[in-house]
């Protein structure tokens, strides 16, 4: 490991020589190579491995999301390797930390492609991250990219597949449900000021207005804003009865606390946070979460034997983990992404060329996954999957979700 330049120049008797040769030593160190975060298959199979790169936020603000993605990736890949790999070839996993910082991410992701020569990259949490790393992966790196997180839609880049829910999947059922079944009439859209809420709200506005309800206000705040009394006054004065909230951490905690203190939920108001899953429930005092609505492709409450078994094996693999197997983190999208990739490579008979795998991925199907089956919609780069509307129930000091609506094979309606 790069011993060449670890040696302080003072040690040598002939200092001049040491330092004038420093660059040469550095070069020697380079060729010595570096250890990577590499998960090798436990049993070495004879065939050359398939290299999968995971680029996700192991550190920084999105670290809990990224770590959940990474754990699920390890979990799935171990499963596949135990069963003999893909088309007889084992999978080798490589991790690049995107550190919640696109500037660092671009370098690390490029290393994944140039140094480890991965055959596919999965990952990215925020849309800012996806936009930053898709160019080094898809265009410059000529590699397949799979984005696992729920997002704002409209990503129609060739060789970039999205395995998380789209706005249509998350909102096309949820909002009519709230308007028709729950009688909501007046919506508010407080949001963090970045690309995901901005694009998502455009779609949400259309759905709300098409269903005959009204938007009282749509506002954007800096990501780290912690004072929301002006917003909450507007909620009260505007007689808002439903808040479609796209504020993200760290702003969402003070927002929810201040909203709860004004008694919005107690007087019958509904809060929606469509990226909230079981992991997010630990971010707030439980009382603030009662009655919260979310809509995702999987909740632990989903009564499906395969999902239950998956969940059980995951908790055996990672006992007492801080990063559960949930949907809002993109972990279910990660599961689907790797399994669909497995299906595609099986379909190409082990051919890893991007064009071939892309063509197979376009039609790939997954019979069983978290939340049920899923399949790519041919020609649309996105994935049709089951969607669930869930309501958070807080009792006995625990918060959990109850499924209030289940929808089979919801179309992503993208591209």
């Amino acid at each position, binding site marked *: 490991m790069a011993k060449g330049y670890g040696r302080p120049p003072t040690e040598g008797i002939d*200092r001049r020589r040491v330092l004038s040769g420093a660059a040469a030593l550095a070069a020697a*160190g380079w060729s010595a190579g570096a250890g990577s975060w590499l998960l090798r298959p436990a049993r070495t199979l004879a065939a050359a491995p398939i290299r999968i790169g995971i680029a996700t936020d192991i550190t920084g603000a999105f670290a809990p999301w990224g770590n959940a993605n990474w754990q699920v990736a390890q979990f799935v890949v171990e499963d596949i390797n135990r069963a003999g790999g893909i088309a007889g070839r084992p999978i080798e996993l490589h991790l690049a930390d995107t550190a919640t910082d696109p500037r660092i991410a671009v370098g690390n992701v*490029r290393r994944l492609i*140039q140094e480890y020569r991965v055959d596919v990259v999965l990952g990215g949490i925020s849309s800012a991250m996806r936009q930053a790393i898709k160019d080094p992966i898809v265009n410059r790196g000529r590699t397949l990219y799979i984005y696992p997180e729920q997002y704002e839609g409209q990503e129609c880049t060739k060789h970039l597949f999205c395995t998380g829910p789209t706005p249509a999947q998350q909102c096309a059922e949820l909002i009519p449900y709230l308007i028709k079944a729950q009688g909501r009439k007046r919506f508010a859209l407080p949001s963090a000021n970045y690309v995901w809420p901005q694009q998502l709200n455009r779609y949400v506005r259309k759905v709300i207005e098409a269903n005959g309800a009204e938007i009282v206000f749509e506002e954007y705040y800096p990501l780290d804003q912690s004072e929301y009394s002006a917003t909450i006054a507007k909620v009260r004065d505007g007689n808002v009865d439903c808040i479609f909230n796209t504020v993200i951490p760290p702003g969402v905690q003070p927002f929810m606390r201040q909203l709860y203190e004004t008694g919005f939920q107690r007087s019958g108001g509904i809060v929606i946070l469509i990226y909230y899953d079981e992991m997010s429930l630990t971010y707030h005092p439980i009382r603030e979460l009662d009655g919260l609505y979310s809509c995702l492709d999987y909740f632990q409450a989903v009564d499906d034997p395969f999902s239950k078994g998956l969940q059980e094996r995951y908790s055996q693999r990672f006992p007492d983990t801080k990063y559960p197997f949930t949907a809002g983190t993109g972990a279910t999208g990660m599961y689907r992404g790797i399994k669909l990739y497995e299906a595609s490579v099986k379909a190409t008979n082990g051919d890893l060329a991007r064009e071939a795998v892309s063509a197979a991925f376009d039609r790939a199907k997954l019979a069983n996954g978290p939340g049920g089956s899923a399949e790519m919609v041919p020609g649309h780069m996105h994935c049709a999957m089951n969607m669930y509307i869930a309501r958070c129930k807080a009792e006995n000091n625990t918060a959990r979700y109850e499924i209030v609506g289940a929808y089979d094979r919801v179309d992503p309606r993208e591209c």
Partner: protein
Amino acid sequence: MKGRLVTRDPTSGICVLARVEIATFFVLLSMPFLLWSRPELITLATNVLILSMLAISFDLCWGYSGVMSFGQALFFGAAGYLVAIVGRDLGFSSIWGSLPLAMLAGLCLSFLFAAILLFDRIKPTTIFVALGTLTGSYAAERLVSGWQYVGAGNGLSSIRLLRIGPIEMVEGIPFYCLALMLFSLCYFGCRVLVRSQFGLVLAAIRQNEEKLPFIGYCVQVYKAVAFLLAGVIAGVAGMLFAYHQGFVGPGNVGPSLSTAAVLYCLLGGPGTLIGPVLGTAVVEVASYFLADIDTIRQIWPLLLGLMLLIIVVFRPNGLLGFIVSDRERIGSYGRGGSKQVRTTT
């Protein structure tokens, strides 16, 4: 200890600094041959070259003209943003247009800063200039991270590839050669400049700034010229960096990159031109490999900070200070000077 530092081999006519320079350029030239099968290391080497230019631009400011500029990343990032936007909105990315554009961006912005910070009625102190440039850099970072047109917090990605005629420059050996060419031009340009009569005045400013006005030199003008040139070099580096990474974000204009430039320069040895290059190489190569080790990655920024602290306190002349004497570092001007260097310090 110091007395033993023989700065010059009596048997040959080439001094230590020149040897280091020759060795460095030899290594840089041999990179494509050594690393032709390791594209990731070519990418790293290209990054080192580009960041070295940023470090050299800081060295011109601080090491040669005593302007403590914490704003080099501002010129660097602004040029990057400019070429990214021109590429996005006008579909233009030819080097014959981008290069002058980036130089102009660096020049205009550094002119603005020079006008405000260096030509105030009160003679600016080092701290004043440092805080002024730092504030500028910070303000620029906040500005671009809130400005939708330039991608706000997301930055600008998928930057058009740099073109030379019909050739698209993807990262790799051709890009490395381009970077090496521009780097060499900047390096030798600066080297000639700091060893010219102009450089002599800069050296005099370092020695005794108060005395120079009495001899008839307008100190601030000389400082400003060096500062503007540094701005131009930072602009060129920023352009290369944006095209090479394919991404430019608020972090590219912010104080953290500005501070990195300071670190590169102080680590390698300020006032030597080649020192900042070595400093950049050491920091970037070390962080590239150490980032793989879990425990070190977490404390790496802390280690860098400690390193900087130790250098500033114990080794103000940086790594090169171990082998290059002060006298050689400051240099000799004209023919008569070379004989003095022969003596030991």
